[in-house]
């Protein structure tokens, strides 16, 4: 995998896991929005038609409820990890933290609230990796955009000199690439690169999940690691190290 740009798209390693995740999310969406149709592609892509007219307040209430249900009812951590196990291990090693909660983003056509241009670090650790998992095929404005790492740095250098956010935004969008990602693929990106999404001008809804992984011992960001992440995988080496350290300290306390 070539990560020098700060991102890459990769076909998932275990489509059964991703299918299972998608199906479970789909069932929760149907339940939350009272959708009877059981055609998964149709419901997810034409979600806006099934939902119809709904106020922003009601939609957000349902979306928040949906996120809660996903986090409480779906074993998303295991399913996502299994989908991309080798890539995650190659990037971060065998001692892993995973974000406690999985986010779902729903961008209906012409939704006026796309994700604004931003970079996750330093709020999040620059040693984290973000997995962006579309549940539908995403392309053009239905996809998200990213600015490669080198250009991100150049843009921030410019911002530091001019302090002109509007200009920074214009230049960033110009430098950005819309990343097509189909269902079955996963976009991996560094928290160090600028990203966001445009208003979805396609005729289909974009539904995607995102989650972060981090090596247990790599430097944290400004967010409290214990609040944001939980331990997911620990190597035998670290288990032995911790066990011995604990035993020695316990003996010292008894003296």
């Amino acid at each position, binding site marked *: 995998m070539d990560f020098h740009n700060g991102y890459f798209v990769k076909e998932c390693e275990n489509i059964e896991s991703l299918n299972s995740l998608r199906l479970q999310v789909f069932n929760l969406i149907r339940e939350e929005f009272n959708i009877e149709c059981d055609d998964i592609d149709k419901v997810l892509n034409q979600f806006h038609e099934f939902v119809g007219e709904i106020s922003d307040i009601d939609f957000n209430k349902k979306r928040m409820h949906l996120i809660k249900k996903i986090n409480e009812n779906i074993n998303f951590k295991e399913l996502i990890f299994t989908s991309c196990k080798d890539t995650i291990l190659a990037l971060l090693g065998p001692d892993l933290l995973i974000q406690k909660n999985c986010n779902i983003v729903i961008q209906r056509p012409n939704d006026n609230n796309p994700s604004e241009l931003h970079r996750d670090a330093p709020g999040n*650790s620059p040693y984290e990796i973000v997995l962006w998992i579309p549940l539908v095929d995403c392309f053009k404005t239905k996809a998200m955009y990213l600015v490669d790492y080198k250009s991100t740095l150049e843009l921030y250098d410019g911002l530091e000199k001019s302090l002109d956010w509007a200009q920074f935004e214009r230049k960033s969008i110009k430098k950005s690439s819309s990343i097509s990602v189909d269902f079955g693929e996963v976009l991996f990106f560094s928290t160090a690169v600028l990203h966001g999404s445009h208003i979805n001008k396609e005729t289909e809804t974009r539904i995607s999940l995102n989650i972060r992984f981090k090596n247990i011992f790599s*430097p944290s960001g400004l967010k409290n690691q*214990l609040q944001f992440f939980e331990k997911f995988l620990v190597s035998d080496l670290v*288990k032995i190290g911790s066990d011995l350290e*604990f035993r020695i300290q316990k003996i010292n*306390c008894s003296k």
Partner: protein
Amino acid sequence: MKAKTKKSFYSCIDSLFMGINAEQHDVINTMANRENGKVIFYGAEDYFVAANQPFILTKLMRTKNIDGVIFFTLNQFCYGESFNLELLINILKLKISIHFARETLSIQNLNDLKNKHIDLLAYYQATFKNTKK
């Protein structure tokens, strides 16, 4: 039906926290409620020795009838030269539980501490050891 007995906690705020104490007390009280209890004693380390927390252990030893101690944050065990595992072990030896309000993390006994040691150590390494020089 027998009513559940409320637990009693000792509260220990972070003297090095850059904010008003009321914020810390709010978060600690929320943790106490969550653990089906309430705070009945309050304490804090002196600002100048907060990194090593010399006060809390003897204070807890002298305070009878408490079920646990709630610290505002795990950071209070990370300000010194190394992670203060020794103090955690010594507090748990008093047969009381330890809670960290901001991290919503509880340690019930020594065995629980052993199980959570990697999480705590990782937090220390990632948050303090790697960035604060």
